[in-house]
């Protein structure tokens, strides 16, 4: 069991660019959630996917989108990057009906 894997670990982008972040859940986990953690704050819920369907969406603009693949891995896309999008993006996986969310180490996104 390798845990939740996120890539890349660090990323620097320019304002207006687009970024794709990737997440591989723990083997057997079919639910993947994305969170944004701004420095000094708690993580904020962005999306949850289960069986390739969106099951929840947080209060984020439409510039944020995500999808889940048949192997349960997931991608988070952010378009038209703003300076305020600079944050640690966390992916968490869980099995259905379980509250045991396991987080990856995150992707540190810096927008300049």
């Amino acid at each position, binding site marked *: 069991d390798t845990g939740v894997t996120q890539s890349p670990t660090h990323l620097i982008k320019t304002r207006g660019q687009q970024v794709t972040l990737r997440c591989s859940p723990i083997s057997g986990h079919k639910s993947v959630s994305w969170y944004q953690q701004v420095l000094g*704050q708690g993580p904020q819920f962005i999306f949850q996917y289960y069986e390739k369907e969106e099951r929840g969406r947080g209060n984020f603009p439409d510039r944020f989108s995500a999808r889940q693949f048949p192997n349960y891995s997931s991608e988070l896309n952010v378009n038209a990057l703003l300076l305020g999008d600079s944050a640690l993006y966390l992916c968490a996986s869980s099995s259905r009906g379980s509250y045991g969310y396991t987080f990856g180490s995150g992707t540190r996104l810096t927008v300049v």
Partner: protein
Amino acid sequence: QQQVKQSPQSLIVQKGGISIINCAYENTAFDYFPWYQQFPGKGPALLIAIRPDVSEKKEGRFTISFNKSAKQFSLHIMDSQPGDSATYFCAAVNTDKLIFGTGTRLQVFP
């Protein structure tokens, strides 16, 4: 808007002492209350969790106390160690979504 309020923002404790972190919530629809520990450069890791029909849960040096009528819950770390130095987040779960508190930075000095 669903919120979880956490205090204190930072905490300094001497080795062997008791660390206490408090949280309060507003939404009665929450059905699970976990605590997460986060080290710099890492994602949050589940420490201990409690359901609202239980008033206390203990795992090793970590204890959650839960007061449903007051909508408050707290984390007690007994015999605090320097290795416990980290940021702690309380959270509440509603329809598979985690609502996090603002975090408490704990520093344990030898």
